[in-house]
């Protein structure tokens, strides 16, 4: 399966983490290609990423996390990958779980697999108290609006089958996209499954969701989820 898995790493100003992240994936034994998407970084992220064996695609300006991840789906679609794995560039995700993440897709059980910190055996690091409240709220809201129970809707550690790669290469939410992407996926009847994973604190730098933006994040994502429920049309037919 070596040639059919692509690990997508969106990176914005991650010069201190990106190399370590890429090396950790190459050394975990998974046979996959790695794509680093530089989202218009103003530091040495590109140079650091190019020191590894990963593919490096550089966006001309900052598109935000949604646009960067979608770039990965476009790349995966164009090159015919069967599975894409979304992996954070900041060292929060544990590459030893990639295997577990893709196995439901390989077995044909699911089209989209989410790595969850909130499934037993529980991850040691499960975000701050306030963020956990937000995550549980989104989880409740999504389960209320869809028939899908996702315990960690903000997790960016995910695997996708070819169908979902095609769908998200056409449309992927832009701002804080993870919870909304679940709604989009369910609208297209994508089979979603969660698997337990470990996550770590960021190795260096700041999270893209800073405390001052938390309130905006909560309101925006809540609206985005509710509005998606009103979109019952399937615009893209990948």
């Amino acid at each position, binding site marked *: 399966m070596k040639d059919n898995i692509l690990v997508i790493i969106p990176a914005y100003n991650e010069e201190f983490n990106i190399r370590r992240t890429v090396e950790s994936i190459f050394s975990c034994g998974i*046979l996959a290609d790695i794509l680093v998407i530089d989202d218009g970084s103003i530091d040495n992220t590109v140079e650091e990423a190019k020191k590894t064996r990963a593919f490096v695609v550089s966006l001309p300006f900052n*598109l935000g996390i949604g646009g960067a991840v979608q*770039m990965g789906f*476009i*790349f995966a679609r164009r090159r015919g990958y069967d599975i894409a794995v979304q992996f954070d560039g900041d060292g929060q995700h544990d590459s030893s779980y990639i295997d577990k993440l893709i196995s439901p897709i390989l077995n044909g059980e699911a089209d989209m697999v989410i790595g969850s910190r909130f499934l037993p055996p529980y991850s040691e690091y499960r975000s701050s108290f306030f963020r956990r409240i937000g995550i549980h709220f989104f989880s409740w809201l999504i389960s209320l609006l869809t028939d899908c129970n996702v315990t960690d809707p903000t997790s960016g550690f995910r695997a996708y089958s070819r169908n979902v790669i095609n769908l998200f290469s056409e449309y992927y939410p832009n701002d804080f996209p993870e919870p909304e992407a679940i709604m989009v996926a369910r609208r297209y009847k994508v089979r979603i499954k969660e698997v337990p994973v470990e996550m770590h604190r960021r190795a260096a730098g700041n999270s893209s969701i800073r405390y001052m933006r938390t309130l905006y994040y909560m309101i925006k994502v809540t609206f985005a989820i509710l509005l998606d429920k009103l979109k019952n049309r399937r615009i893209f037919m990948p």
Partner: protein
Amino acid sequence: MNIKLLGITLAVAILCIVVELTRREKLTFKYAAIWLMVSFAAVFFAVFDELLFKIAYAFGFKLPSNFIFFVLMTAFVFITLLMTIFLCQQNRRNDKMAQRLAMLEFELEELRKGSGSDEKIA
């Protein structure tokens, strides 16, 4: 009468500016159309102000000026909404173009390296 003259002059001036901007290609017709409609309406009601008053009273406005403000506010809200739609459309196109450009740059670099576009690394 002076106010009427002022109203007509301003409305005609706005119409002339919109036409001139379109003529100089500073405004494309797609975006000028809404401003042309607004300017024509302004000229029409500046000339036939009696009609404007009649409509205002028919809608129950005590003062015709209140009606004018109400119509203008409503028109600007819709124009702003329309502009936001265009802005979102441009934003989406920009993102798509940036993604396509990044992909092309990557492929060009790959070709330059002579590694062949189908070769994979892992």
